[in-house]
């Protein structure tokens, strides 16, 4: 199932509430007790990158900033730490959005990885510059690896509501 620009498949337009519902779900996933496990991906960053690439005009730096602030408060981290990282990543994702969808999913994932790594690196840098603190361990930087591996699955799941029936209907143009 190809969902890049190369495929001739035409998707239905996305519903705006679905974007925000998935962002909210990602935040919920981030706040699960499992988030303390090593190498767990940052779901909000992953879904944010996905929608910034797919729908750069519906979700952008503004929502990234707001979700970042919410994560900061929920996380008990510095106020603005997640917001800063998410805003930069949303910008990065929307600026590559026209190019990246021409690649097959595996190569897309390869280009997503530096963006997701950037989220962790920025937060680490900000934290060390601003207040200092414990080194969170290398597993902190492993999260983006697993998030990258989830990219094809995520693409499939999040685009499911936009898929059209594969069998052609004689009475329908598309």
């Amino acid at each position, binding site marked *: 199932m190809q969902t890049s620009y190369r495929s001739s498949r035409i998707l239905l337009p996305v519903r705006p509430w679905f974007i925000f519902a998935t962002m*909210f779900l990602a*935040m*919920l*996933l*981030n*706040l*699960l*007790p499992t*988030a*303390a496990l090593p190498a767990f991906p940052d779901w909000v960053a992953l879904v944010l990158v996905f929608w910034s690439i797919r729908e750069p*005009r519906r979700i*952008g*730096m*503004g929502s*990234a*900033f707001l979700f*970042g*602030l*919410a994560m900061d*408060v*929920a*996380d*008990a*981290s*510095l*106020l*603005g*730490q997640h*917001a*800063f990282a998410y*805003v*930069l990543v949303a*910008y990065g994702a*929307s*600026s590559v959005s026209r190019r990246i969808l021409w690649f097959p999913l595996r190569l897309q994932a390869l280009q997503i990885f530096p963006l997701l790594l950037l989220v962790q690196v920025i937060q680490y840098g*900000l*934290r060390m510059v*601003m*207040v*200092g*603190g*414990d*080194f*969170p*361990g290398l597993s*902190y930087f492993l999260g983006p690896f697993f998030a990258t591996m989830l990219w094809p699955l995520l693409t499939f799941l999040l685009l499911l509501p936009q898929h059209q029936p594969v069998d052609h209907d004689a009475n329908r143009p598309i």
Partner: protein
Amino acid sequence: MMDHQPPPFFKRGPAPLALLTFYVALSLALLIADARLQMLEMLRQGLSLFTHPVQNMAHLPGQWVDQFGTYFVSLARLQEENSQLKRTRLDNVTTLLRTQQLEIENQRLRRLLELKERQPASGQVAQILYTARDPYSRRVVIDKGLQDHVQAGQPVIDDAGVVGQVTRVFPFVAEVTLLTDKEQSVPVQIVRTGQRSVIFGLGNGQLELRFLPANADVQNGDLLVTSGLDGIYMAGFPVAKVVRIDREATHAFARIFCLPIAAVENFGEVMVLAPRPIAALPDALAKETAANERKATSKSGQARKKRSMKE
């Protein structure tokens, strides 16, 4: 004059780079205001009203699993636990009664000697809800907040010893920084020798007793209790036990590693101690500090004037 603006058919708002600059500047301003000036507690409390329900929702499945587990705990085990608890209570009753009597006696003696009276320990029981997700610090969240008159700075203990200190209060919950956090320090006293020092978290579950000379009289297994000199922790609560001492001739200080006595990194119930009343300074000292403060403010005022003159 010709207008070179594009037609308004494809209105897309401000340019992405302008938006990026705006949001980056905004988040940097927030970061600095939060980290350096500590001004945003109100904003944080307001935002927590939105995030707190989400967090509660995220922790529901875990709670269900817990409840499911405890529901099927066998009756026999509960009965056994109950009888054991009764036994320990009976064991403790004699010491408890005696302690009460000793406390009264102590109070009377202190009054006779005209010493300051000791404050009795009081507080409220709170439950640890979850660990804060921030990987850079060691904090937990307890289920008592502004609603229960918890204040930042209150010490938190469990049945074995000091756990940490309340550092941030939200309407319904509060954040407790654990002893093992890198930013946390507690003034302590070695029980065996009475020597005072300060213990610091290392961030890896251990604590370090600093500023003791290399030849200090410290042994493995020494118990450290709060010294009470800070005006925050009451004296005498167990904090840590010495586990390793490195005495190197190259350093002036010994490196003394300790492990916390309380179950610091475990979940469970804790007690938030009531804040200690601020000890009033003797009259002469109070006047002196007031005079010093006045001098300091006038000095800084002068410095500011000078700086503005230079500019």
